[in-house]
């Protein structure tokens, strides 16, 4: 009996010590929290502007072009009126005339962790016009101001539905002041809906680096100012999933990275 009693003791100690260590880590991460996150931010890593490269590319779409899905806005006559009878269609799944995809979010998924960036002072604007979010896809940096305005004479309710960030919703009546919000954590992508108009949708990508772009109506994108290095580039679309590619960017190099999505 005594033997295993003695055996238990070190066992318990080891276990305890393990817990202790982990507890320790927690504690230490807790303590300096105010020091790093809020008050004193690490200074941005200097990037030599003479060496930076650039990535451009096109988001192509293969397969049959899906028909645009019209939005039934008759729930709110204001919205109908805003489109002057022409109606609107869903941006998700939309394909450009030249067979490319708009609204793809292309970003540096990995490779830029070693850099830190100052929070930009300019605001990212999210407009609500004709009961649609403009832009449909928006990239911001962690902590950057998102400036939400409404150009519609109807009440909107902005409701981002993040996984990792704080969730909130706020109503914006016609003429109400703009709403300014920031997102504290990196997240790809935060869907934003409107509690008033359930068709309204925007996507916000919250990034730690500024190397991202949204493909336009010609399906092309450009990521500028990339320091030389190896990167994983991700391309996110709302309907057709996400793809990624690895790329090495040399000093002052202009690389082309194309993505092709299928229906």
């Amino acid at each position, binding site marked *: 009996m005594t033997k295993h009693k003695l055996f238990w003791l070190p066992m318990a100690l080891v276990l305890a010590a393990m817990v202790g260590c982990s*507890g320790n880590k927690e504690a230490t991460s807790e303590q300096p929290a105010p020091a790093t996150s809020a008050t004193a931010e690490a200074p941005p890593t200097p990037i030599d502007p003479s060496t930076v490269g650039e990535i451009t590319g096109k988001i192509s779409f293969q397969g049959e072009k899906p028909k645009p899905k019209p939005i039934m806005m008759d729930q709110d006559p204001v919205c109908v009126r805003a489109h002057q009878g022409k109606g609107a269609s869903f941006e998700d799944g939309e394909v450009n005339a030249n067979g490319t995809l708009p609204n793809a979010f292309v970003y540096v998924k990995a490779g830029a962790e070693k850099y830190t960036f100052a929070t930009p002072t300019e605001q990212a604007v999210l407009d609500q016009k004709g009961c649609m979010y403009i832009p449909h896809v928006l990239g911001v940096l962690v902590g950057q101001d998102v400036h939400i305005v409404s150009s519609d004479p109807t009440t909107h309710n902005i409701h981002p539905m993040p996984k990792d960030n704080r969730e909130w919703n706020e109503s914006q009546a*016609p003429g109400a002041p703009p709403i300014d919000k920031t997102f504290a954590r990196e997240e790809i992508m935060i869907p934003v809906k409107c509690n008033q108009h359930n068709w309204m949708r925007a996507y916000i990508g919250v990034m730690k680096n500024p190397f991202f772009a949204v493909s336009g109506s010609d399906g092309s994108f450009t990521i500028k100012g990339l320091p030389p290095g190896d990167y994983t580039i991700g391309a996110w679309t709302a309907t057709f999933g996400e793809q990624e590619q690895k790329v090495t960017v040399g000093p002052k190099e202009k690389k082309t990275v194309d993505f092709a999505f299928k229906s």
Partner: protein
Amino acid sequence: MPETPEKDPVISQSLAGYLFIAAVLLLLSLAWALWQEFFGIRPWKDYEREFVSRYSIYLHKQIPLQEKAEKEIENSPAYLTLQREYQDLEKSILPKRESLESETALIDVRMAGVLDRLTDVRSQVAARGYTIEHATADSTKKQALVEGDLRPFQATKYTLTLQSLEGPGKFDSVTLDSKGLEEELARLQTMKAQLQAREGDLLRPLSEKQKKIDDYLHTQLFVQNRLNGLSVDQLRGLIAKMQIFTIEIKQINNPDAVIVDRCESCHVGIREPLKLAPADLETSSGKPDVMSQAFVSHPDMELLRIHDPAKFGCSPCHNGNGMQVDSVTQGHGEYEHWLWPLYHKGNMEAGCQQCHASDMVLDHAPVLSRGKELFQWRGCVGCHRFQGYDPEPEDLAAIQQQVQQLEQDRENDQHGVERANHLGDIATDNESARRYYLQANELRVAISKIDQQIDLLDNRSADVMRDMKKVAPDLKEVRVKIHPEWLPVWLTNPHAWRPTTKMPRFRLDEDDVKQISAFIWQNGLDVKLPAQPMGDPKRGEESFKSRGCMACHSIGEGAAQEGGWFAANLSRVGEKDNYDYLVRWIHNPRERSAPYCPYEKRDLNPADYEKHGLPFVFDLDHNRCPNDGHVLEVEQMTVMPNLRLSWQEARDIAAYLETLKKEEPSSFAKVPWINDPKVAAGGRKAVGFYGCAGCHEIAGLETEGRIGTELTKEGSKPFEQLDFGLHVAEARDSGWYNHKGFFEHKLTRPEVFDDGYVTKTEDERTRMPDFFESMHDGTAQAVSVLNSEPVPESKKWSESDLSGADQEQINALTTFLLGAVSSKYPERYFYLPPDQRRDIQEGWWIVKKYNCMGCHQFTLDQESVVMNLPQFQTPEGKGQLPPRLVTEGARVNPEWLAKFLANPSLSDTDTDRDGVRSYLKIRMPTFFFSPVEIRKLVRFFQALSEQPMPYIPRKLEPLSTAELTMARALFTSQGAPCLKCHAIGLAEHDKNATAPNFLMAPDRLKADWVRHWILDPSMIDPGTNMPSNLFRHEGSRWVFAGPTPPSFKGYNGDHAGLLVRYMFEINSAEQQRLIQMTGGNLKPKLGASTTRLESSPKVRIAGGPRPSGRGRETLAPRGPAGPSR
């Protein structure tokens, strides 16, 4: 003695050397004893000393950091403002305060002058008075003495020079007798009191301000998560506490419960106001050691707050020997002769069970709660009685016994009536005849009372029978349900066919399997189900995934598994089930092929009904036995609810499920013997032996008892009485010769304690089947896994490797069983709250029983199954989630809730829908709760939100005409969004609706809650679709944030209140009017079926909804021999 030739050894021998050595040894042993006394058996002294030093060092290290943080806060504008305000205030009252104080000082001086003389006078008066009182008994003489001596003395006048109240340095001279002196004193005292009161009033704002400043500091530190918000001063206080720390046994002594615990003599930091981690209290060399482990704070301070250690001690929960402090082994009770060794870390929550046996769900004990849930879910309760679990069979037996007793009483009373009547008839005088007749009448009344009681009991037995569930499927239906070829495949090893099944593997040989299969097959009801036309599997899949089936069921195996764990994984259901049966099952799982009569102990057949000229109809409304009138079991004893799907949808789903298979049923070995009675003959014994009837309903075995030992107090059973078989020596050597080791090994591989026996017959070996086969890789390995850290909760069934999940379950069950002890606390310590908290306790049992948490969240941190399904991840999907029930009790009217729970469609006729949220694809099913369970659930929700019962609605002020106009205008205005999302009863509009109809509000909701809801819904239900900040605060009222209709001009009332009041006045007519007011916007189709929603649905709780298939659905094909009625 000169002549002695030799020295006499006896005399001359010196013992000095021996004595010296002995004395030295004695001294040494005494010294050893002293050392032992003061250090050897007092290890806690070292602990306390170390703690004081390490804790002080830690605090000293913290102070500069905290000071810095405090500085920062003190330099913040808010703090500075407060500070400035304080100083301004102080400055502003300073002159007043000074004048008050100087006035008081003057009064004090003057008072001293008066008192100086008065004390002397008082003393003289008292002495003289005493002398007079005792001088003589004669009152006249006394009076004379008073007059002659005392009075003149009292009248003596004194001239005093007193401090003038006009200012210092001024004096006035007064002449006063003793009475005057007293009056002067009283006057001065009053004045002083008034001045002091004034000063107090003056200073109060200052001290309030000071408190505000302190609070601000604490709050800021707390928000910044700095040392629990302790200020530097408080830290200094802690250091000071350490400086005067006495090295002594720290003891909790509660004579009330006979608790003496000295755990804190070593665990000194356990209740410190800081959160102490081992690293905070490491040795000077910077390494955490045993002591820094021992010094940490309690990991769950909230738990300690609820269970004050001064009352509850430590050892009753944690076990160990709380009194012993002479060594760690002794204190932790880890020696042979202590029955309650410290619980292992992974089973720490076992200690909760002794008092919380009545709780199914415990907030601070997830592992124990899991164990409790598993005990029910895995069907342990089928074989092992455990107080609190599955009480229905016992209740039913008790009711039956009571009914029989009452029937006996009734008969006796009947005889009594006859006898009394007879005696009355033959009585000699009228007086006694009247007495006898009276007696007879009294007995007749008693009989009527008995009849009522029997009725009540019959009703109760109907309720109990509804609540009575079996863990596993009804085997009476086996012939209509499954392919016979599948039976042996399943019985041989259920885990091979369906790895996640809760059906355990019985160690059956081929003969056993054949016999049991044949017995079950031949024992099944021989009925035919109507043939169903094939459904559309594609639509079925859609329905299956959206209707909510996956809250309980899962699809896909291994990593591809998706869905809930509560019910079976249906990935291969197509290999075994008949399509026709599946259709009926999906349409209404509670439908039986034949009712069971517990009095006759058999299943009734159409002939039984025919005899009495009755149609063969049995359901919750037709639940009396045609033969004896007692209550029948008319439902399947499954917890699976009725989703109220149409026959077509049921067919679609069934068709989909039939496509789920890995191999064709035809590939199973043929079973030509299945109908051979000879093969079945041995099966009866095996089925009884293995206790199959504990979990399954089996014809002829309905009344079988549980075959296992009762486990209610299993943890208290001396483990010497637990049968370790041939593993005793091994267990002893490897340290699992204890309860934990026994439970873990038994659960891992139940037959483990039969190992090595060669003489045991089959019947003597354990019958307990294997539940956790993935853990079978040798006992030793299992132990090493089990003794490590507990598995994180995230390891659930969906893991492709089951061993993690199994390990988690074994640990949870072990914890539960370890805690199943006779408590060391007196019974009044048990958690049996007399108030609403009891409702919460009871409610959880039902919530767990029916897996309500598969769809609903009761607290935010509890995740439902559906919310994690992929189809509910998109914004649209999230909108389709079932409602959160976090504040359900505050939200809904309990009476309405009772109706809703009884029939979630809220309609008798139109059942293929959800009564509240018709826009959801996922659907609240009908559970056919008995009134007992409904009552408990309603109370549960009310109690969760601390709502008083019964609910009496607050009377709302009726709307004035003007207000009505305003409300309507707002409801229909462009700015107000209400009608955009809320259903209004128009099919066209409701297609896009995402919120319930307002018509229900008056019956369903509570006005106070609604007001809070519309003001800030995301406070109540984060992530809700309901928009927030629709109102803004304006002065003391809430005003609609958007543009208000012109009629609101000049309105001073609260807009939110107005809307609430309006909502509670809405009826169908009003709704029609609203629709019209919106003009063409809502596309009103006049005359549309707005009656679809009855404003107060008539719901029969007793019977529940009548699913549309029951004789109403014309589409349902009805075979001539079918069970339809």
